[in-house]
């Protein structure tokens, strides 16, 4: 084994170790550097010579100190990583943007205005186009189909625009990491250090062995493994021991989320050696971890969304606590901008709902009472749990933010994850039904049969014959789809909220009972927000499960144009299920999908 000194600071595979000082310049054995199989730990390697020792060190593409697939939950005590799971990382992206550039991102009201404009514009254009092409009354199904496709195109267009923005920010962060400017249009390559950096930048941008910023921030992309193992001389330093202690500590802290994440990473990397990256979520998390490493923690003492520094409202919270001000007005005056915005949002939403109820629906008073009661039961629980006994253990500001997180983020995350997990259960049930249909084809009703009782009788017979299947299906839905998903969503919605009340330093100064009470109140606040939103969905819609089912149907409409009739039957069933109860959407999907799968069979008993 021979070690050669790399004089131009270039490591293997085009990776540079720009952060190393000249004294720490590594010795690299180009013949012995292989990509590590997912092991990103620093393992000591016995040195061949007495001094200086050589250590195996793991580095990552683009000089990041963590892998793009380190995992959102690699450190169970890192709250900010959880934030990446909501809104496709937009909140964390805004924070990164503000910290790096010092400028404020596009306000949320503008983004909402763009979203509403797209929502309104696409159907209008489609209706006009369909009415122009087809003389007479436009077909409703055609209009719905083209509207959904229009939404898909608009969604992709906005995604591409966001990709460009995130790419620019990543370049800026890379620039900060390297401590030198990145020149994009120079082609000269000499031995001069500046030109080397130019060459490296071009390599990075061209994707020759390195990542391209646009690649990791695409709507959907496969990202190669970014782990590079090298050998270099590390002089003895106490910080090295501290790092090893931290790594050892993290190994001991590995929890179920870390294991799940590692399992997913293995699944993704097993076949093609790539990680599936969606909307640049993992890249944004990686950038945030890097910024946390580079910059002092004071720079991150900001609220999400409003980006208000803690220092502007923490003294007010302290004053309320020190004065033991028990009045609601005193607590309200100390609220941050984000909490005030949440309260205004709730007030405006209530106003809109009230106007809608009185304008379009019958028995408006009774419905309004239902809405207020739904909100009121959450307020009652929060009053009993927080305000009555623990108003000084956790601030009202934190309670409002946690309630908002539960209302917005926990519900949205739960809907998406429940949709994905319920698809697995539905798929298994569909396969079971299909096998049953193949065995006894004459039992299944004709798909053109408009009498829904035939479908129900078939389902009832099937359920009687396969009661164990339905019990397993119910258990899967209850324990995995609903319970596990919702509890995890609530936990992470609590965990992602960074608030000064949960600052570790503050918690050390207060009693253990106060810390425990603040955790309990915070988690109950999140759950109240979640339950409130879920109840609203049940009042105004059909609940979380049907939301997932409806999304499934809409996806079927978009991505399966060949099976238009099947999808249309699903849509028709969806529409009809709003009028009739017991035949759930799952039954509709099962029946129509089974009919489609059997369409091409030789017997031809199904004429879908």
């Amino acid at each position, binding site marked *: 084994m021979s070690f050669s000194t790399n004089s131009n600071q270039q490591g293997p595979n085009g990776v540079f170790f720009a952060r190393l000082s000249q004294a720490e310049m590594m010795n690299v054995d180009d013949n012995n550097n292989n990509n590590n199989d997912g092991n990103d730990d620093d393992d000591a390697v016995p040195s061949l010579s007495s001094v200086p020792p050589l250590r195996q060190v793991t580095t990552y593409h683009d000089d990041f100190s963590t892998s793009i697939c380190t995992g959102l939950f690699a450190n169970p005590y890192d709250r900010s990583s959880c934030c990446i799971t909501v809104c496709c990382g937009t909140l964390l992206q805004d924070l990164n943007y503000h910290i790096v550039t010092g400028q404020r991102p596009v306000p949320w009201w503008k983004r909402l205005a763009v979203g509403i404009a797209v929502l309104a514009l696409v159907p209008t254009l489609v209706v006009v186009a369909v009415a122009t092409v087809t003389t007479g009354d436009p077909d409703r199904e055609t209009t719905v189909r083209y509207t959904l496709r229009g939404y898909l195109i608009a969604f992709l267009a906005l995604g591409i625009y966001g990709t460009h923005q995130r790419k620019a920010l990543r370049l800026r962060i890379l620039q900060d990491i390297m401590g030198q400017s990145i020149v994009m249009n120079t082609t000269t390559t000499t031995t001069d250090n500046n030109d080397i950096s130019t060459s490296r930048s071009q390599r990075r941008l061209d994707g020759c062995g390195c990542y391209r910023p646009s690649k990791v921030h695409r709507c959907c992309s496969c990202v190669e493994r970014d782990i590079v193992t090298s050998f270099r001389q590390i002089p003895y330093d106490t910080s090295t021991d501290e790092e090893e202690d931290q790594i050892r500590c993290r190994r001991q802290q590995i929890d179920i989320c870390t294991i799940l994440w590692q399992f997913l990473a293995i699944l993704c990397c097993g076949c093609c050696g790539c990680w599936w990256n969606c909307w640049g979520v993992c890249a944004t998390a990686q950038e945030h971890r890097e910024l946390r490493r580079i910059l002092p923690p004071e720079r991150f003492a900001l609220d999400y969304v409003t980006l208000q520094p803690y220092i502007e409202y923490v003294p007010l919270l302290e004053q309320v606590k020190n004065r033991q001000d028990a009045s609601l007005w005193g607590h309200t005056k100390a609220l941050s901008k984000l909490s005030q915005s949440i309260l205004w949002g709730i007030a405006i939403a209530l106003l809109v709902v009230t106007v809608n109820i009185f304008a379009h629906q019958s028995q408006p008073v009774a419905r309004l009472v239902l809405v207020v009661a739904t909100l009121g039961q959450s307020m009652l629980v929060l009053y009993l749990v927080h305000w009555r006994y623990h108003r000084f253990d956790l601030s009202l500001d934190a309670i409002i933010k946690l309630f908002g997180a539960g209302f917005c983020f926990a519900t949205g995350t739960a809907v998406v994850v429940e949709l994905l997990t319920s698809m697995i259960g539905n798929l298994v049930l569909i396969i079971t039904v299909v096998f049953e249909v193949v065995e006894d084809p004459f039992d299944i009703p004709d798909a053109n049969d408009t009498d829904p009782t035939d479908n129900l009788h078939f389902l009832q017979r099937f359920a009687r014959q396969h009661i164990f299947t339905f019990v397993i299906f119910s258990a899967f839905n209850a324990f995995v789809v609903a319970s596990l998903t919702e509890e995890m969503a609530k936990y992470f919605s609590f965990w992602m909220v960074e608030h000064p009340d949960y600052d570790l330093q503050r918690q050390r100064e207060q009693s253990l009972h106060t810390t425990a009470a603040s955790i*309990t109140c915070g988690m109950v606040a999140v759950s109240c927000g979640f339950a409130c939103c879920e109840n609203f969905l049940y009042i105004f819609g059909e609940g979380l499960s049907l939301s997932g089912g409806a999304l499934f149907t809409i996806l079927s409409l978009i991505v399966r144009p060949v099976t238009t009739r099947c999808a249309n039957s699903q849509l028709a069933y969806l529409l009809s299920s709003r009028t009739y109860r017991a035949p759930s959407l799952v039954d509709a999907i099962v029946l129509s999908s089974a009919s489609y799968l059997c369409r091409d069979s030789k017997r031809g008993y199904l004429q879908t």
Partner: protein
Amino acid sequence: MHPICAAIQSVGICKRDVEHDGTKLGQAILPAIVLHGLFDFWLMLLSVIAFIHAPDLPDQTLAPVATYDDKEAGEQDLDPPSLSSLAISFVIVAVGLAYYFWASQQQRQRLNAMMAAQDSSLSLALT
């Protein structure tokens, strides 16, 4: 149900973050998942059983949805499956509340012991 599950979760999270007894996340939220899952499972199972044993399927299962316009408050059907669901829901909620109060009481005692140990070590250091 959600606030009770959250409160039960918080006991586990406090064990992890305040007591520092090495509790993992899965252990912390498992009781809440089991309770919530049981609640949903029984409701789903009862609906499946009711569907299977529905004697007059079209009338019972294809009846138009009882919207707020059609039914006055208090006119809801309280058939045996609904009553069973209601009873089981109350039982599971009561079990969850009892478990939370028991676990919370245990935790309070442990925290008191920890604080007493801290105080005694502090007084020893001062003396």
